[in-house]
């Protein structure tokens, strides 16, 4: 192992090592970040949800967007798999259906970056128990 020779060295090292714990730190303040949940039920996976999940993880990182990407179970919109739910800080979640990598790209560029809606939004067809 190489020695750390100065405070500047240490700081540089910290920058490089940051990503080791970054995921955990993001999870700790998820509310203030963009949250993306990819439906990974059996039908989601069969329609390529895994690829979409990886796409979001990699692209958001590349484009320097702080976001928490998690997977969730079947969201019920099996006619429109893969489905992705995006929650911008302080806003209600929006679910996008039939997400391909091109569409995922659009979601990042338009909705996440600028708040512009993108085609393919699935209407909310249920109430959550927390609202009752």
């Amino acid at each position, binding site marked *: 192992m*190489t020695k750390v020779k100065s405070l500047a060295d240490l700081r540089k090292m910290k920058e490089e090592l940051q990503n080791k714990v970054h995921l955990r730190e993001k999870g700790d303040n998820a509310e203030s970040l963009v949250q993306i949940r990819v439906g990974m039920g059996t039908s989601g996976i069969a329609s390529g949800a895994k690829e979409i999940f990886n796409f979001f993880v990699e692209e958001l990182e590349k484009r320097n967007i702080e976001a928490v990407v998690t997977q969730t179970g*079947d969201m019920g919109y099996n006619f429109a798999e893969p489905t992705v739910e995006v929650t911008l800080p302080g806003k209600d979640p929006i679910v996008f259906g039939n997400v391909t990598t091109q569409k995922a790209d659009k979601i990042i560029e338009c909705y996440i970056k600028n708040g512009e809606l993108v085609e393919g939004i699935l209407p909310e067809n249920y109430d959550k128990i927390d609202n009752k």
Partner: protein
Amino acid sequence: MAKYSMHLLVCGGTGCRSAHSAKITENFKNELDASNLSETIQVIETGCFGFCEKGPIVKIMPDNTFYTQVKPEDIKEIVAEHLIKGRKVTRLLYIDPEKKEKIEDSKHMGFYRKQLRIALRNCGFIDPENIDEYIAREGYEALGRCLAEMTPQDVINIVKESGLRGRGGGGFPTGLKWEFASKYQADQKYVVCNADEGDPGAFMDRSILEGDPHSVIEAMAICGYAIGATKGLVYIRAEYPLAIKRLQIAIKQAREYGLLGKNILGSNFEFDIELRYGAGAFVCGEETALIHSMEGLRGEPTVKPPFPAESGYWGKPTNVNNVETFANIPVIILKGGKWFRSIGTEKSPGTKVFALAGKINNVGLIEVPMGITLREVIFEIGGGIKDGKKFKAVQTGGPSGGCLTEKHLDTPIEFDTLIAAGSMMGSGGMIVMDEDDCMVAVAKFYLEFTVEESCGKCAPCRIGNKRLHETLEKICKGNGTREDIELLQNMSRVIKDTALCGLGQTSPNPVLSTIDNFWDEYIEHVDQKKCRAGVCKDLMQYVIRAENCVGCTACARVCPVGAISGERKSVHKIDPAICIKCGACIEKCKFDAIFIQ
């Protein structure tokens, strides 16, 4: 480097490890390999999460899923369901004891909501065996800043400004202690970390060393710079093998990175740390006794002054601080003394780590701002008393502390208020007692401990505590009188005034505080020979209720000493002279005919 989209944090503290958490980590690794997920999901063994009651704990990030009481055989299901299909394994989620709801996100758990983690900032978050993770969390930045941007006096000033007080029990201002040690000139000075955690039921220091050893190493180096010492020693009990192992790994890694050794971070500062093992004697938590033990002498305290700051290890100026005190230092340097002062109360700034134990729902490790009330700690964080029983008392400060009762529940917790209430902060053990605990027996238990742990050097402690214990024993056996209670009080005061070190000066506290707060119970013991909690066996009598007994002979047959007699189908009798109060007859009786008087 592999790009991970998920982190599995498995608790690797002593508590969870004894419930096979190491096997859980191994199973996760194997299952992830088998499912080709080891490239995208990382398994990390962390330090203690604090929620020991429901261990082993597995926390999944970034979605904050908190699985409790996980068994090695559950891993297959977690991988197949949660990690592959995104469905949480609901049967392993924590259930809120009040609302009976399953909690998916650990941030919504009452246990964590009121906590503020400074000393425990990295416990349950990083891998304690990996220095890189500590550095990624601004580790060694504080040391770097001290060396590059501050004079030793600047460092001392920040610690003084923060108002940090020693977390080992006494509550002496840390900054002042450092300043004393810095004033003395010598060819060699020492920094000692006191990791001789001796209170029964306390495991704060062990958990910090197991979960975040680098925070202590960094702080010791900072202290070395501040007082002009180049050598550090950690005095740790040999019965903490995991803490020792993680500390050794951490010291080795710090040396490899040049964060210990010569010319640290390009400066002229030199510092290194060695371990010294204690045999687990309670008195060695006292700093002079600790120093003697490190020198290879008997662990006996000596009169202060001279204080260790002037003449300590091998007669050289030595600064001794406790593990938790050190763990606060790097954060104070980074965020400033003012910031630290803004937390907690005016006279006791910052937070305190407590080990919750006893008859409480959430046994575990917590860190709360000073000034929080006992009620909040016991009922909100601790989740209340087990099995819906009634709260009776909480013992703080270990064998040197006292018992606090219902009327103290709204007292803010800080060094001075606890002393005013007849107890003390101590190192942070909190043992909760319910209606089934006998307070005379509790006092006797602590005295048993201090009698055992007294080093025997001074007479008040060696003989006085023994006499206290005998008198309590007499009361518990049903031979006590009112004069005995008075004797206990007088003797306690004399011991407190005349004992040599902190051990003897505080050992009568449990006796005095239980007499003060539970006078009725003492009186019942001596006047009516009655123990309301049913703990003192000699005061109990097993009696057969004539109207319920049908003469089935079941009790007489099960009695191991033949104390029960009676004809078939007629009322039986227990001979109290023979009865050993084992309770076998009560368990056997189907007619509720035997009771304890």
